């Protein structure tokens, strides 16, 4: 631990000039923060080890907020979760030249609960939500639901709080895929009306803590299926796959106008080169992943030029809509199958969320 004196010292230097190094001399600290704000998290972690001054600059509130405001210019991180043969997270840095992979072991998750985590821009709070279904029998798809409990953890509080609001329909995807306007979103279990199979979207407002039902974009007919949600260009988007090898991306242009669903683009089916067919991990061991999708849109890359997707939870490729081209992305060292979570790197600390329970792994500087 640094002594208070040294902290004081560093802060003083930060406010005036930064001795970047002998050859670069002293530059105004704001300019140095500007430089740091352009770096991906992995580089900033290296910077923290350069010297005391670099270390305190990376932690400086101004550097943190400058970095956050630039966060969308860098490509995001992918967090790939797998629980076979061991539970681990692989963190892929898409902004590094070689798509660097970092591995973290995690404890096994025995629960099949629904999760969500997000930030509301108005209340400026991070909240995590956990929805637990108590069933008669262990299979959530067939068992009758006895009871539903909803818990919220606001960042900074030390305990989960129980709330009375409940989702209006049964949610089946394990984690929220899309955070838009401070609302988390999940898909409901599919249900049938006449010939048609329908699936609704459940939203949860992180500020008011209310659930809502959003109708699916179009009437689908028997051959199309709403497979998953994703956030694209800050808009809620739904991916509808057909049996004829096409995946439509529908975008809710104006979040508050439910009529604004628009078909934005169509991505044909594509099997990436890195796809390994012959080794199959037993899927029943995947405790926390029930998605098993052929095609899953993850995020846009290069500020919207390309769309990144995963194939059968085993490999990645990107699609450039203006050229109609696919590019396979090979990443060495990942397990055979994994769940992917898109993560925009930020210097904002979430340590407070683990008050009393020190976080085992710091994904945030």
């Amino acid at each position, binding site marked *: 631990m640094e002594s208070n004196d040294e902290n004081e010292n560093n802060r003083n230097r930060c406010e005036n000039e930064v001795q970047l190094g002998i050859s*670069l001399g002293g530059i105004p600290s704001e300019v140095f923060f500007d430089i740091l704000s352009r770096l991906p998290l992995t580089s900033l972690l290296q910077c923290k*080890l350069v*010297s005391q001054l670099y270390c305190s600059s990376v932690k400086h509130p101004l550097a943190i907020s400058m970095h956050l405001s630039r966060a969308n210019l860098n490509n995001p991180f992918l967090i790939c979760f797998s629980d076979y043969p061991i539970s681990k997270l692989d963190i892929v840095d898409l902004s*590094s030249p070689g798509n660097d992979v970092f591995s973290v072991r995690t404890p096994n998750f025995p629960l099949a609960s629904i999760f969500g985590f997000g930030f509301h821009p108005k209340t400026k709070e991070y909240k995590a939500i956990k929805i637990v279904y108590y069933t008669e029998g262990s299979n959530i798809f067939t068992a009758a639901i006895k009871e539903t409990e909803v818990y919220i953890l606001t960042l900074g509080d030390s305990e989960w709080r129980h709330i009375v609001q409940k989702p209006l329909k049964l949610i089946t995807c394990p984690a929220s895929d899309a955070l838009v306007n401070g609302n988390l979103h999940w898909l409901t279990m599919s249900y049938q009306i006449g010939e048609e199979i329908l699936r609704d979207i459940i939203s949860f407002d992180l500020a008011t803590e209310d659930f809502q039902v959003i109708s699916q974009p179009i009437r689908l007919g028997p051959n199309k299926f709403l497979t998953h949600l994703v956030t694209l260009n800050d808009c809620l988007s739904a991916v509808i796959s057909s049996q004829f090898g096409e995946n439509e991306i529908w975008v809710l242009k104006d979040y508050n106008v439910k009529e604004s669903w628009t078909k934005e683009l169509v991505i044909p089916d594509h099997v990436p080169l890195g796809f390994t067919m012959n080794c199959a991990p037993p899927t029943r061991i995947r405790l926390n992943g029930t998605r098993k999708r052929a095609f899953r849109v993850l995020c846009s890359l290069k500020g919207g030029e390309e769309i990144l997707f995963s194939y059968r939870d085993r490999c990645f490729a990107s699609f450039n809509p203006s050229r109609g081209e696919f590019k396979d992305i090979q990443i060495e060292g990942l397990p055979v199958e994994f769940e992917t979570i898109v993560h925009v790197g930020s210097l904002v600390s979430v340590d407070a969320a683990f008050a009393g329970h020190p976080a085992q792994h710091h994904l945030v500087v």
Partner: protein
Amino acid sequence: MSSSSTTTTTTRLLMLKASDGVTFEVEEAVATKLGAINNMVEEEGSEDLICLPNVNGKFLGMVLEWCKKHANNNTNSDKGNDEVNKWWDKEFVMDLDQNTLYHLLMAADYLSGTELVDLLTEKVASMIRGKKVEEIRETFKIKSDFLPGQEEEIRKKNSWAFE
């Protein structure tokens, strides 16, 4: 701030005087790409000689060269100007040694040349990006001043990134 103060199109010349007495004659449209000079022109109005005691002739010259190139490229109302600017910017920062880079950055920051500061900070960032601690220290000739154990503690905290 008057909203209709679009500067007259007749080219007015400004004299800029650097700390070492070197003077530059520059078109107003070029010099006002620098926020600091733009402010002085707006505040002092008719003043034609502007003294800049914090920047010497060599680096003021380089900053003005950059401004001139950008002003010229922008008046040619050709498409692809952005491409030309980008290409020229790349050439501009390509072979800068660290000493020049530092003084240019200081000059651009002092003169509030926002776009130029952007270009130069990005250049420095590119010298850090993807490098390991030792390589960053080597690049900028920095000696570690951590107390024994401190460095180890930071490494432990973010062990996933340092394996």
